[in-house]
């Protein structure tokens, strides 16, 4: 436990001593803020035009016009930015050789993997918590569905953690940070878009592909539906890649 905390603190220090965390969080908030502003502006414009037509006013609300597109957009930004958070976690240690010392300290391999994973998750959570300011602004604008808002954020957080676990694993198999970032992004994107093929791949394969696709899972969270199968999907996704990272460290030990 001591070792895990040591790794966690070291990784957090690395994120915040270097410009990494500030840059990634900054970029994320600027782009997310831009989408929020654009969506709110759109809402006010549409509301003005629809003021005379009561049949569409009911469909123009903060939940549909602002929250849902915003969370969708944030999830796409995360697809780009999460690999930048995770790419150096193991690659850098392998490149500089510090992994050799780390693996001879009395810390078990799982502690090292979890310490690094949770440090990246913490930076990601800081990023997400900052976007809660949007919710406070929306409270002054009108009513929205708190349930949908919370489930969307839960989906976003679960998805982000999954991407981080994937990134941690990719980072553990290469000592080149650019390669780690590129593969993490590519792999995450594949999980994202794979469901597009389900319409022409036949029934059985199509069903499997739909089950593995991230976008389908996130979609139900955005609708305000939190199902056990969706939550377990993300939890297993995360646990699976953390397990692979753990095994990857073990293989590196054997290779020396």
């Amino acid at each position, binding site marked *: 436990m*001591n*070792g895990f*905390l*040591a*790794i966690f*603190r*070291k990784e957090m*220090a*690395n994120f915040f*001593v*270097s410009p990494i965390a500030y840059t990634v969080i900054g970029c994320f908030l600027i782009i997310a803020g831009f989408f929020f502003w654009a969506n709110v502006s759109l809402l006010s414009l549409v509301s003005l035009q629809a003021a005379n037509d009561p049949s569409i006013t009911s469909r123009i609300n903060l939940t549909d016009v602002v929250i849902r597109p915003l969370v969708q957009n944030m999830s796409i930004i995360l697809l780009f930015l999460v690999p930048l958070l995770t790419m150096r976690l193991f690659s850098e240690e392998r490149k*500089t*050789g*510090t*992994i*050799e*010392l*780390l*693996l*001879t*300290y*009395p*810390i*078990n391999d799982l502690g090292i993997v979890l310490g690094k994973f949770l440090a990246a998750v913490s930076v990601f959570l800081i990023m997400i918590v900052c976007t809660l300011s949007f919710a406070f602004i929306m409270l002054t604008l009108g009513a929205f569905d708190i349930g949908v808002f919370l489930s969307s954020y839960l989906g976003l957080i679960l998805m982000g953690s999954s991407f981080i676990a994937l990134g941690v694993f990719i980072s553990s198999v290469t000592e080149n940070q650019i390669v780690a970032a590129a593969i993490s992004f590519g792999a995450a994107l594949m999980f994202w878009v794979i469901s597009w093929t389900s319409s022409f791949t036949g029934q059985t394969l199509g069903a499997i592909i739909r089950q593995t696709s991230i976008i389908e899972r996130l979609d139900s969270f955005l609708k305000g539906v939190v199902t056990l199968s969706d939550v377990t999907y993300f939890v297993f996704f995360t646990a699976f890649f953390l397990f692979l990272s753990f095994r990857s460290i073990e293989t590196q*030990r*054997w*290779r*020396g």
Partner: protein
Amino acid sequence: MIEVMGLTKYYGSLAAIRDVNFSVNAGEIVGFLGPNGAGKTTTMRILTCFTPATSGTVRISGIDVGEDSMAVRRSIGYLPENVPLYDWMRVRSYLEFVTRAKGVASSDRVKEIDRVSGVVGIQDVQTKLIRWLSKGYKQRLGLAQALIGDPPIIILDEPTIGLDPRQIREIRNLIKSFALNKTVILSSHILPEVSQVCSRVIIINKGVIVAEDTPENLISGSTRTSRIQVTLRAPEQESKNLISGINGVSTVKTLAPFDEGMLTLTVESQQGWDIRPELARAIVAKDWDLLELRSIDVSLEDVFIDLVTEESGDILTKESVIDREVA
């Protein structure tokens, strides 16, 4: 303290070390000597639990490395060859990280960092970024992290590589000073260093131990001939003929080129024969000028090259070994 039995490690089909056996007693400083790629680092990596062995056992203080890796890791301080440090960290926060990673109780951390900093002499760079430290200070910091937690065994891979002569001496003295109550294994290319610091030397080549003894025994054991260097003013061929005729002389070689009538010869004689008095008398009787006459000690370097050459069977001159070291 350390028992290594039948240690073998394969990387793919390539054996890095084969059937390595040795043991180290508490309080010893053992030098690991060998050319690059001999298996020194591999052996150290197995001892420090970085990599598991293909076969064989390692017991540290009676604990098997494979059985209780955590207990073994707690009792070893390790400094890898290229001194890997987090160069974005400050010295103090790096040492804090190491105390946490090594599980030093939080109440003792400050005391431990101060103690180790004092031992290796890095008190005045505590707030510096590791990136801006000189090579010598980085090496000291590397030693400091190995010493944190006060492990009874210290394993140092090439602790003086890349340092200038003054820094080498400082590091060597440091190792000697903290070695009083610790067991130390260090690897090195620099042979005089090993003979000065270590009480025992293990010479390893191509993954196999080729010799293991004190530096003194290694040197005396290998002295099959005694060598004398003589400088005189005389015609080359005539003087060579004369010296070859002296009882006990096995070979005579010209060392320095013929220069203004001056000549330097290396004379090898059988062990136990002191040919110096007779040699001197013969030269003086010829009425030649005898300028210098001295016997040459065999260095650990000669022993090392002898052993390594014998084992590998390739033509390895002193120069080529030095070239390798430089490379």
